[in-house]
């Protein structure tokens, strides 16, 4: 998994490539903790994300909760196979896609 973080004013864009699974999720979680700060918008760019397991979903959920009250969290460029996972788990309805 590769993570690229870009900050623009109060917007944080986190591009995740590869597999977001049990082994890689802690790294994303740590990066988010370090960089989230007082950003008002968190953007996940999943253009090159191939796979997400429940460990990855957990990170999305905690990020969403972390943004509650201070801004919004959106997802961009979600692939069909990752979207299938969001649909099966009911995440699709609550996530915001741009």
């Amino acid at each position, binding site marked *: 998994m590769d993570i690229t973080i870009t900050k623009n004013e109060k917007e944080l864009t986190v591009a995740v490539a590869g597999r977001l699974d049990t082994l890689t999720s802690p790294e994303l979680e740590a990066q988010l903790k370090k960089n989230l700060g007082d950003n008002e918008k968190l953007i996940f760019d999943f253009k090159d994300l191939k796979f997400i397991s429940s460990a990855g*979903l957990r990170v999305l959920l905690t990020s969403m*909760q972390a943004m509650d009250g201070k801004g919004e969290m959106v997802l961009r460029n979600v692939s069909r196979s990752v979207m299938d996972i969001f649909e099966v788990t009911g995440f699709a309805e609550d996530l915001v896609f741009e």
Partner: protein
Amino acid sequence: MKELDLLAVKENLDTVTGFVDSELEQLGCSVKVRTQISIAVEEIFVNIASYAYDPETGPATVRTEIVNDPLSVVISFIDNGMPYDPLARPDPDVTLPLRERSIGGLGIFMVKQTMDDVVYNYKDGQNILTIRKQLE
């Protein structure tokens, strides 16, 4: 039938997913089905690695088998740890808004939703969880 014996620790996850995926690759299985199986394999193996022998570690066996009519892959996960039926826990309510949800149980729920059969057996001191996914 192919079998992989290894220590049930999270660090071995890539070995397990690689073992299963190399079987599926030969069958020309779709990316969607391979992704679903990969998710199932991760959820089940990580469960065993996290809980079966906690706080110790122990062995696990992963067995793959291809069956016909309809063409399916059958994968069994075997451990000698504490008896535990992951299918016994209630499904999470996936209609609740995310903010009100606890994330527990989501992994095994995904397995149940995407596989065609999920069966648990406890036999001769072994937990045996078997999944079947139709490939065509």
